[in-house]
């Protein structure tokens, strides 16, 4: 490693005027500045515009309503039933019988590479909460959490391909907040934190 006279760094950092250093040091300053100039000039054709490529990706329409409905129909959803205590024993027996006779020995119909992810967050003042992340290309809208009993706790249960995903909650369509109860958090590209959810194969 060549040790540089500190005054050269000072000149290059704008802390010292070039005239304040001896001529031989100015030559080294010029040598390094020339190297940087070479790097700053890309050869012709190196900067072909990305505009059309990027704008095409941005303009790509969101899935149609029919497609969203189809996706909703094929995606398992949690269904909560409220039953009077008097009926609960009979209802449980019926559910158990249906489960025994209709479900195979493998349990719920999940593919081998799928698992269940649960998203839960407490947002008492929120009007809407969505989970966005690497599982839905950070597009808001596809996974809506629900607060059915209006206690401020929003929930969603979805089936996702197994894997590790980064995600955040989007509250009221504009506020992005990490889920601090997530399995872990990682720094994202924007200097903040994303939550991590690991979706494991069902039944394991």
């Amino acid at each position, binding site marked *: *490693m*060549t*040790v*540089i006279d500190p005054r*050269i*760094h000072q000149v*290059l*950092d704008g802390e010292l005027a070039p005239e304040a250093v001896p001529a031989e040091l100015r030559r*080294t300053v010029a*040598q*390094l*500045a*020339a*190297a*940087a100039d*070479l*790097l*700053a000039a*890309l*050869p012709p054709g*190196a*900067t*072909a*515009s*990305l*505009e059309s*490529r*990027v*704008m095409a*990706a*941005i*303009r790509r329409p969101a899935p149609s309503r029919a497609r969203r409905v189809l996706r909703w129909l094929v995606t398992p959803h949690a269904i909560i039933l409220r039953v009077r205590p008097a009926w609960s024993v009979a209802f449980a027996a019926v559910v158990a019988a249906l489960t025994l006779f209709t479900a195979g020995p493998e349990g719920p119909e999940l593919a081998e590479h799928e698992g269940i992810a649960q998203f839960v967050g407490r947002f008492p003042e929120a009007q809407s909460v969505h989970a966005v992340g690497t599982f839905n290309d*950070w*597009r808001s809208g596809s996974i809506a959490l629900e607060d059915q009993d209006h206690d401020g706790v929003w929930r969603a249960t979805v089936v996702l391909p197994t894997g590790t995903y980064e995600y955040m909650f989007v509250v009221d369509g*504009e506020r*992005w907040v990490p889920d601090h109860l997530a399995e872990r958090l990682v720094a*994202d*590209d*924007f*200097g*903040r934190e994303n939550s991590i959810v690991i979706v494991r194969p069902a039944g394991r």
Partner: protein
Amino acid sequence: MDVRGAPSDAEVVALVLAGDTEAFGFVIRRYEAGLLRFATRMLGSRDAAADAVAESFVRAYRHLASCREPARLRTWLYRIVTNRCKSHLVRRSVADVSLDDAPPVADPADTEAALERADQLLLVKRALAELSPDKREAFVLKHVEGLSYEEMAAVTGERIPTLKMRVHRAREALLKVLEDHA
């Protein structure tokens, strides 16, 4: 609006967030050259750089609402591209850094000065490729992109003394290569 009539970054961000998708074209046209140059010097490959910058623009568009200081959009974009480049480099060893924008085979019509300049560029790029990604990033942000240390701190999340030290080490490594080949 600046004196030439082009909207400011803050105005463009406001337009896009209000639903004017096409206004994002201003952002691309304004910053792609610098971002592509930075990514090319970081990754040593024009194709990889174009992918990294294009992905970064798409991410920036989708997360534009989370840009807290639209007036400092440039710094925010560099931060996204910097992280894209780091992710790319993690998947690839430094030895793989290509020199695919190396000068073409000598053409008889080229002047001696142009050939010398091309040789010098190849030398500088090799020296740059041998630096650690952190030092390379610091040197390119400082001397190729012309960012201040304050802006570099905002882009990288590092402290200014750390960045200064990296730039100084990068200069020393670069100078050694230049002197060895003088």
